[in-house]
């Protein structure tokens, strides 16, 4: 009689599974072009609100007043960067959280947990799809915004700005594991995620420098990777000033987040996941 032996999946197999998940998600979203267009329009409209308000109220002094408060006269690029990093961050939260909730609602989450592919492998695939979609939309929206408002999108150190985005993505997606844990635990968590996206945008200084916030709030904001991401991009492109004066020191902080947050996120996610598996919670929605 032939003997069947279970072999855990190899790294190559895990990578294939993650990429298959990414491909699946990208094919799925390509079927909803309206949604993709909205992902580009939303940050543009969002950034336009304070710009139009500022122009209408401050008139000819808008740029000078803005410089006195933020360190740059280029409020168009400042707001566009804020709105687009916000898009990247919220995409990350929603895509990961919504993936888990979708699987819960359609009743396939339990089945996923019975396959040899780990949930973290599939989550990596979802995260890759989300990063491609989020960063892609943000870049397109930024260029379109600069075109509409007639400012140069490629000023300053573009490569350093891109480096801040790319390095910041890993701690950002590690944080989404915490949101994944919340979805597994709370289930109907749309309102919580909605609230969190605004908390995050407030803390990272979407349309203002965090220096205007009270000291305690500033400290909380600095413990959050997107704050370093957004300030890094603004400083590289607009010269508003890095937190530690030099780009490599700020980037070093992001690298520290990169080394720590994946373990924290994974630990919390696994803990919630195991708890639910042991207590019949996985199939419930």
């Amino acid at each position, binding site marked *: 009689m032939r003997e069947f032996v279970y072999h855990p999946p190899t790294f190559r197999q895990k990578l294939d599974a993650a990429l298959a998940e990414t491909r699946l998600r990208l094919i799925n979203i390509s079927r909803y072009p*309206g949604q993709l267009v909205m992902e580009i329009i939303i940050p543009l409209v969002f950034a336009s*609100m304070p710009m139009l308000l500022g122009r209408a109220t401050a008139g000819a002094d808008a740029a000078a007043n803005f410089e006195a408060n933020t360190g740059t006269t280029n409020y168009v690029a400042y707001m566009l960067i804020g709105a687009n990093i916000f898009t990247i961050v919220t995409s990350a939260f929603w895509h990961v959280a919504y993936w888990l909730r979708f699987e819960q609602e359609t009743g396939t989450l339990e089945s996923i947990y019975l396959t040899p592919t780990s949930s973290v492998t599939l989550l990596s695939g979802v995260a890759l799809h989300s990063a491609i979609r989020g960063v892609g939309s943000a870049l397109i929206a930024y260029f379109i915004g600069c075109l509409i408002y007639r400012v140069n999108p490629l000023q300053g150190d573009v490569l350093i700005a891109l480096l801040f985005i790319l390095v910041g993505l890993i701690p950002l997606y590690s944080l989404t594991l915490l949101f994944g844990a919340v979805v597994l635990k709370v289930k109907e968590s749309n309102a919580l995620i909605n609230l969190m996206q605004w908390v995050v945008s407030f803390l990272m200084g979407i349309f203002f420098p965090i220096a205007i916030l009270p000291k305690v709030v500033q400290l909380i904001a600095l413990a959050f990777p997107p704050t370093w991401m957004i300030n890094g991009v603004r400083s590289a492109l607009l010269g508003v000033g890095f937190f530690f004066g030099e780009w490599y020191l700020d980037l070093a902080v992001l690298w520290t987040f990169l080394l720590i947050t994946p373990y924290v996120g994974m630990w919390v996610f696994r803990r919630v996941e195991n708890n639910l598996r042991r207590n019949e919670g996985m199939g419930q929605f």
Partner: protein
Amino acid sequence: MSKHLSVFAAMVHKEFLIMLRYPIEFVASFFQVFLIIIIITLAGLMFSSEGVGAEAPPEVGGVVAYGFVLFIYLSDTLWGIGFNVRREQKQGTLEQLYLSPASKFASLASRVVITLFWTGLLSLGSLLVMSLLLGGLPLQNGGLGLYLLLMSLSGTFGMGFAFAALTLRIKEAAQTAVNMLQFGFMVLCAPFFPFAALPPAILAISRLIPLSYGVDSFRSTLMGYPEGFPELAPIGTEIIIVTLFGLLMPPLGVWLYRWAEDDARRRGTLSEY
């Protein structure tokens, strides 16, 4: 008549129960509104010569605060009335609802009550927060302001019914449509900035939308018509436009919804999603 009223009351009761059974959602949506206000206010203050320490001029506070009230009403109406039909469709309860002898329209209208109550509370709370942040808000001509708000809301609910009709037709794409309408409103009806900030081409489109006159007349009236306000037309003209919008839009929305509903029943697409 009393039976219709009792069905309506039962549906309002059901909507309230659903709302109260999700306390996290309840509290989160409340805090979310305040965060949005704080973010917009701080962003606006970045253009002030004194920064966050400045007290915003009354017109700036009035434009943003009163525009925000109409914005959250429109947003809640589109999601709460229009998109809720989609929720019933997804949950598989829409077809059953149509097979019961209860009034179909009562189900839709019951959500108006929830929106009026809950969004009303949110509006009052947000006005209070903004008043604290900006050092007071202008408040004049309260009676006329309330009339204009009610007429604008009535028109907005009509838009909600019309959107519910659209939801029955376009199904999953309704989510994108809600977003488009919401963001279209944010630009074209200028709830967060004066109309003067819009480029002429966009302003021409704004003038064709009745809700723009709702936003303009409501905030101009409460601000006591400072120089340059109302921006789109003389106040008398705006009052007539807003009144017509408030009176005609609800029956038009209901008519469109009934038409879409009959069409969906005939084609057997009510339970399709």
